């Protein structure tokens, strides 16, 4: 499944400073749908090159990271249970900064 993943608000530093990634992710064997719950560990293993604790906490994103699926807050789509489709755009923005 081809997806576009974007990282902002400083999170891109965890992925070699690349903000936009075009990726191809396959659902878990035996399943025909890909949910956010499956995508997060995939991102952690394949895209996050340093400090994974800045991105994930447990099986969810670290609190303070905003997730948008096709420009819509993922909390409106089911959060971890949201199902992804071909060509979806998922954006992760860290809201933790400033001082």
């Amino acid at each position: 499944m081809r997806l576009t993943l974007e990282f902002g608000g400083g999170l891109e530093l965890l992925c070699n400073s690349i903000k936009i990634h075009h990726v191809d992710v396959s659902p878990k064997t035996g399943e025909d749908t890909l949910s956010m719950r499956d995508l997060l560990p995939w991102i952690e293993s394949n895209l996050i090159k340093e400090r994974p604790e800045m991105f994930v906490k447990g099986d969810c994103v670290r609190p303070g990271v905003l997730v948008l699926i096709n420009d819509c807050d993922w909390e409106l789509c089911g959060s971890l249970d949201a199902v992804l489709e071909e060509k979806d755009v998922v954006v992760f923005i860290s809201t933790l900064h400033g001082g």
Partner: protein
Amino acid sequence: MDEIVKTIGLKNNCTFCGVFRRQALDRGAALMRADKLVTGHNADDMAETVLLNILRGDIARLSRCTFIITGEDGPIPRCKPFKYTYEKEIVMYAYFKKLDYFSTECIYSPNAYRGFAREFIKDLERIRPQAILDIIRSGENFRISTSTKMPEQGTCERCGYISSQKLCKACLLLEGLNRGLPKLGIGRSRGLNSAKEDGEQRMLRSEVKGSNLQSKQCGTLDF
């Protein structure tokens, strides 16, 4: 800041940075003859500050930290218009409006106390987002017991800026840096007339006359 951290180490960085930045903002505003100074503190910041002051028992700050306007009787009042706006809303607004902003992480703050309050509040927000506004509301409704002694506002003997002690924090910290005393001005004074803080201040004030410090006299600025 890099030089300051070389002198003081990796602890208490926020104290130095915050105090000097605030001083720079105030003096810059005065130089520009501004009427008001407005900062971008948001709801998350306010809630973190309330919690932080509770955790540290800083009663004086606890009583003031939720005011949306401060320093009204001073030369340049300060205001926080985003006091009730969630950081999440601000980030989403910036994203959709394609606004450019700095999001670099402060390299000296990983062990800052505020970080723990922030982590806690973020966890709370996930479970019950209204908690942030509720914490602010609690903070607004704190009333300090009349038997608690509160610091009085005066002026700094060295630079003339407002201060609750004989020397303002900026002058105290600067003195510490110049004399290789990184702990000067750090740590709590037990009671308003603690021997330690008093002793330090007396030692410093006796040198005011013959000093060659960089601290600029506030009196030369036309408020």
